């Protein structure tokens, strides 16, 4: 059984790893690279817990093969904060209590950040539509949506000042 050698950029770092072609990017992140911030939920693309950014698009890491990451640039939850400074979306989730068990949270944060990168001032409807591929089974969505709105608001203020 041969493993494949893959080179990718993960959270800005050139990274090399070995994986079997049947292994998902999610398995590679968690089991090979020990980046366990990305969570496994449904493992079939419905829940969004394993959301990562791949070449600028959010994707379910469970539906990407590790070998498909060759040459790609991947951003995971571990790459969202800058050092010890949390991203505004992370701060807003904490302050807005937009999480309970936390399994869905990394996926929501990666997805929300990607939304605000594209659309700094989304409407509530745009937030809910963008996050329709992310499921939360404890908090409910209102606190999550409000936290994204609050992060958007603060990021806009930062730009203005």
């Amino acid at each position, binding site marked *: *059984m041969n493993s*494949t050698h893959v080179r990718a950029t993960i959270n800005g770092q050139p990274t090399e790893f070995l994986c*079997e*072609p*049947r292994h*998902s990017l999610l398995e590679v992140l968690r089991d090979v690279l020990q980046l366990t911030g990305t969570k496994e939920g449904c*493992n*079939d*693309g*419905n829940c*969004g817990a394993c*959301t990562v950014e*791949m070449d600028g*698009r*959010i*994707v*379910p890491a*469970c*539906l*990407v*093969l590790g*070998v*498909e990451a*060759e040459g790609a640039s991947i951003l995971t939850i571990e790459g969202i904060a800058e050092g010890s400074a949390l991203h505004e979306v992370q701060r807003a989730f904490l302050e807005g209590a937009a999480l309970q068990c936390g399994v869905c949270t990394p996926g929501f944060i990666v*997805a929300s950040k990607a939304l605000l990168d594209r659309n700094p001032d989304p409407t509530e409807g745009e937030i*809910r*539509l*963008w*996050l*329709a*591929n*992310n499921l939360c089974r404890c908090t409910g969505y209102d606190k999550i949506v409000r936290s994204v709105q609050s992060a958007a608001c603060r990021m806009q203020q930062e730009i203005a000042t």
Partner: protein
Amino acid sequence: MHWVDYLRPRTLDECLRAFAEHGANARALAGGTDLLVQMRVGRRTNGVLVDMKAVPELTELRYDALEGLTLGAAVPCYRVYGDEKVRQTYPGLIDTVEMIGGTQIQGRASVGGNLCNSAPSADAVPALIALRATCRIASTAGWREVPVEDFCTAPGRNVLRETEILVSLRLPPPPEGFGACYLRFIPRNEMDIAVAGAGVSVKLADGVFEDGRVALASVAPTPLLVEEAGAALRGQRVGREAVARAAAAAKAAARPITDMRGTAAYRRNLCEVLTRRALERAVQRAGGTLG
């Protein structure tokens, strides 16, 4: 998942040779949003995955006023709705690529994959039929073209032979007075499988339906082109009566089953409502009015 080998051909020729060599053991991998799930649950047991995303012909998205749209079979949904020219020219296609899965799925899933997966509920397929799309199919033995309405043969099955692949879809340029629309019904707002869906197109000239096309999702073993609905429109004055007759023809042609998503009677009723509303929208997009 069982052991698989992974190939990433860089040219169409290399890709076709891989399918010629591995035959039924090979499976095309585009976005993987259906395929990887099916392999994990053991529904597919192919030993060789051929990643189509490095082949230029499979990732081409090009509009030409004479030739129309060339949509590579592995182009993900987000590229289709992110293309301003395609948005303006084919709103009936945009309807579907914006509703397949959610944002993350749209980052991977392709229209060609939606077609090749050949689910009766595939949202992209009725829209493609309404838009008169054709499939460009290739193998090492050569090329052939198949209209999308003739592509699917049964749930999960289609006309592709073991050594053939879908390279691209070709959508003709919309003529003057053309409008299209796809609508589906799901009990949630997003992220669900169509209980029923209707893809339609119209061509209007001088207040008359010069042409019309209606195709349905989730109400037969394959996506269904309803010839009788098109016939009910053709030559008729643009108005609510002709639309109602086409919608009734769609209802009559539907052959749904009862399952967890809806009863057969409910689905037949949906076909009428969705066809009517989609036609109303298509007429509007064609610049017509229903009076």
